[in-house]
Each structure stands twice: as C-alpha cells, then as structure tokens.
C-alpha cells in the first residue's frame, strides 16, 4: 500500500517535471530568435533605414522606406476588402446560430483560414495579375484581404455573441427596427472587440509573404501606384536574405526586427483594446444578467 502510493506520487512528480520541461523548451526558441534579431538588427537601425530607398549591392546605407509604405498600402487594401465583408458575415453568423447555412459558413471559414497562404496568392494571380498582364498592389492587397477575411468574420461573431441578449431585447422593446438594433446597439457594444480582431488581422496581413510573391511582387523603387508592382517589408527581407551580399543580409536582419516590432506593437494595442472591451461589457452586464442566451 505504502510502496504503491509512493510510486504514484513519484510518477506524478516525473510527469509534472516533464510538463515544466515542455513549457521551458517551448519558450526557448522565442528567446533565441529575439536575441538574434536584436544583436544582428539593432546596429543597422539608423534613421536613414526608415527614410531611404534600397541601395545597390556593395553600397552601404540605404533603407526600406518604400517597403514600409508598400506594406502599409497592401494592408490598407486588405482591410478594405476584409473588414466590411467580415463584419457582415460575423453579424450573420452571430444572429443565425444553429442554421444549417450558418454552420456550413462557420466550418468553411475555419477551413479557409487554414489553407496555405501561397494558394491565395496563386488565386489572386490567376484572377487579377494574369488578365491585367502585370503584377500590382491591388492583387497583393486582395490576396491578403481574402487571407484575413475568415479571421475577421469569426472574431466579429464571437464578439457580437458576447453582447447581452437583454440589450438587444431592450432596444427592440423601445421600438428599434432589427437593423438599427444590430448596427447601433449590438455592433457598437461589440466594437472594441471587433477593433481588436481587426488589429490582429492587420498584424497577420503585415507579416505574410507567400501570397505577395506573385501578386505585389516587390519593387526596388519608390511606388505608391496600386496598379503597379509594389515593395513590401516581408518581400524585401526575403530578397535580401537570399542575396549573396553582406550589406543586404545585414539589412534583412534590420528589416526583420522592424517587422517584428511592428507586429508586436499591433498585438499590444490589440490587448489594450481588449481591456477596454472587458470594462465596457462588465459595465453593462451586471444589470442585465447573463451574457448568453
């Protein structure tokens, strides 16, 4: 009896130690990658890195100003595609919980978000680049937009579902029509959460490279014309990393550091908005009771 309980305790300790190991091992790559980025990228991060155009190989200096502007444009196009449609779809999904169609859409949205991003690039190429005959920022932005569309839709759905039903009922009881209730009461209450979702979608879109390879294509020169090929930060990093020139490789590290800082800043902003949402919801919830039907 005693030996048996000893053995059980020992097994428990061993398994606990194993999960500790897993947690530590899982966090190590993050630390290592961050350290390398800081060590290799920080010294390149001069003000000119943000203001100049890429320099030819062998010439020191130069920057990624065009790639930063390009990335901003691509993300803007992507959000213009994904946000209105995504919010509309999210509202539909939240309002039709059990419907057959809604369940199918939910499943397919999840499936779509799991597909390889390069396939979306090929789709945009076939749809836009091939007929128009040249690479363009439109094609890249739309590919990114389709990539984050399911994310925006599903997140909007989750956020709208958190809005207390009693709030909706109160609005309806006051004589609001359904559409006004949805847009002015439900959507507004859920807005901080939806903003969070959009920020996460933005950071995802900003970091993607594969869908841009044959759509936005990259551009070493200054361009803000959405109908032309455009530079993007991840594309620039990819091109620099594969080049044989030390100056360019060093710039790749700096670019990666900038990209990571950008993505992290967006994530932190998203968390701040989440805090606001929780406060907002808890201000409403106690009086109206449960948050779910």
């Amino acid at each position, binding site marked *: 009896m005693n030996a048996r309980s000893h053995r*059980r305790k020992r*097994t*428990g300790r061993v*398994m*606990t130690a*194993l*999960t*500790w*190991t*897993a*947690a530590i091992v*899982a*966090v190590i790559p*993050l630390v290592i*990658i961050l350290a*390398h*980025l800081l060590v290799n990228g920080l010294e390149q991060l001069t003000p000119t890195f943000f203001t100049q155009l890429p320099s030819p190989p062998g010439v020191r200096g130069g920057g990624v100003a065009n790639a930063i502007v390009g990335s901003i444009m691509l993300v803007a196009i992507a959000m213009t595609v994904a946000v209105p*449609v995504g*919010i*509309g*779809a999210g*509202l539909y999904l939240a309002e039709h919980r059990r419907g057959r*169609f*809604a369940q199918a*859409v939910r*499943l*397919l949205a999840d*499936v*779509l978000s*799991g*597909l*390889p991003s*390069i*396939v979306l690039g*090929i*789709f945009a*190429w*076939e*749809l836009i680049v091939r007929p128009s005959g040249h690479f363009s920022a439109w094609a890249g932005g739309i590919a990114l937009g389709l990539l984050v569309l399911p994310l925006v*839709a599903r997140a909007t759905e989750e956020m709208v579902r958190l809005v207390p039903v009693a709030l909706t009922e109160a609005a309806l009881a006051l004589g609001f*029509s*359904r*559409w006004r209730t949805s*847009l002015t009461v439900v959507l507004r209450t859920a807005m901080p959460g939806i903003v969070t979702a959009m920020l996460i979608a933005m950071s995802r879109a*900003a*970091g*993607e*490279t*594969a869908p841009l*390879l044959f759509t936005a294509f990259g551009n070493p020169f200054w361009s803000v014309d959405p109908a032309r090929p455009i530079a993007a930060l*991840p594309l620039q*990093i*990819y091109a620099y*990393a594969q080049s044989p020139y030390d100056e360019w*490789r060093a710039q790749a590290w700096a670019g*990666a550091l900038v*990209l990571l800082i950008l*993505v*992290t800043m967006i*994530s932190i902003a998203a968390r701040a908005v989440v805090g606001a949402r929780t406060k907002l919801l808890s201000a409403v919830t106690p009086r109206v009771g449960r948050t779910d039907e």
Partner: protein
Amino acid sequence: MQTPLGDRLYRTVTTVCAAAIPLVLVLLTAVVLHAAWPALSLHARDLAVGTTWDVPHARFGALPATVGTLLSSLIALVIATPLAIGVAIFTVDVGPPRLREPVSFLVNLLAAVPSVVYGLWGVFVLVPLLRSTVMPALLPLGSAISLFRGPAYGPSLIAASLVLAIMILPYIASVSRDVLLAVPSAQREAALALGATRWEVVRDAVLPAARSGLVGGVMLGLGRALGETLAVTMVIGNRHAIPDSLFDPAYTMASLLANEFAEASSDAHLSALMAVAAMLLLITLLVNLLARWLVRRVATGLPGGRWSGGRW
C-alpha cells in the same frame, strides 16, 4: 405585417457577406483546378509518381516535392506534438497558477512571428549551427542509422522540420489548451474526490475526454506545416530528389511554387505548377476539414466522446 424594408436590406446584405466566404473557397478551388487541368490531363502519371522535374523536356515529376512536403511536416509534428501538449497541460492543469498566463502568452507570441523572420533565422543561425556542430556530431552514426547519413550541406530536411516544429507548436498548443479548458471541471473534481493525484486527474479524467480535440489540434498543426512556404523554402535546400537521410536537401510543394511560379514561361510549366498547387490545396482542405470536425466534436460534446452522455 410585412418586414420593413430596412430589415430586409440588412438581412440581404449580411447574408451576402456570409455567402462570400464559401464562395471564395469554391471559386479558389475551381480556378486552381481549371488552370491545372491541361497538366492534370497530360501529365497525371508523371505528377503523381514521376521523380524527374525537367521543365525544358516537359517532365513534371512532382513526387519528390510531395514526399518532401509530407516528410518535413510529419517530422515537425513528431517534434512539436509532445511539447505542445505538454505546454497545454502545464497552462491548464499542472503549472503554478501564476505562471500559466505568462507561459501561454509567450507561446502565443511565437505564432505572431512572421514566417519570413523564421526563415531568416533558419538560414543564418540554425543552418550554420547544424552544418558546423550538430551534423558532424551525428555523422559517425550514419553507418549504422541511415537517417544520419551525409554529406552534411546544412540546408536539409531536418532544418526545415525544426523550423516547422517551432512554427506549428503555438497552434497545436493553443488549440489543445482550449480543448483541455472545455473539459468540465466536475470531471476533474470527481477524480480528485476518488483520491487521484494531480497527474492521475490529467491522465484519467482530462486527456481521455479531450482526446479527439487534441488529435484535431495536431491536425490543424499539420495543415499549417504542409502549406508553410517561406521559412521552408529558405532552409530545405530545394533539390528535386526524394531525401534518403535527414541531412539531405529536399523540396516541398509550396517551395516549388514559391521558386518557380513567378518565372514560369511556358503554358505547360505554368499548368504543371497549378497542378502542384491543386494537389497541395486538396491535401490541406482534407486535413483541415477533418481537424475542424474533430475539434468541434469536443467543443460541442457530440457523439464519439466517452463522456458525451453526461451533462456538458
């Protein structure tokens, strides 16, 4: 009473938005299949089992890329799965409550790192490390274990698998965490009341109930790994041959597309690449559908789970 105009309009607009998502998926599949059709009808055999990729001679053997895709993803899964499930158990049941939130935050941060950054790190840190230290240390074993046979170039199947493992770990961990959290706490309390130790609670009460969801999470990770492009392209070595050892350079379907698609000159080449894209699309579609079905089974407590009869 008739529904007011505004409401009808609202319903139509949101329905159209919702319909856009399946529409994109269907259109995507149709467009890729249509573009792949010429190659699929002409070179079906070659694409499926051929091993020579020679564009000028119209040989499109995609088997090395298919095998490379599957191998790199499966090895990544073998590495990442135990770690990810370990982390999930740590953050839900075993770890000190104070550490649970920070650990899952840090692991989620791994998911936020863009894939090109992993690629960069892989090329300039991981590959040189493998070439200079890890591979020479393991090469002597090569005579006994063919997995470790040289020559050791650096860019290799194992480099790609390691990078993939780091990349999919957070996905598997976060789905597993959600699944473990969905197991009712009454189940844990019941096991505790029967005198189970903390580990026995996890083993006997939590994991069996969460099993299909955990499998689903692993499959979602598999879907990610199969389609991952940039990071893999940068470290796998891009050689059209089926790898014999972990140290051999290899190829994946996604890297093949990344490397050749923009430069495809002839229609035959383009169509063959479209066929590769179509195969990749179909494989990941299947994996994702299966994964979602498994995860949902736990989330909704539908048939299959051992505890599905109880109050969920």
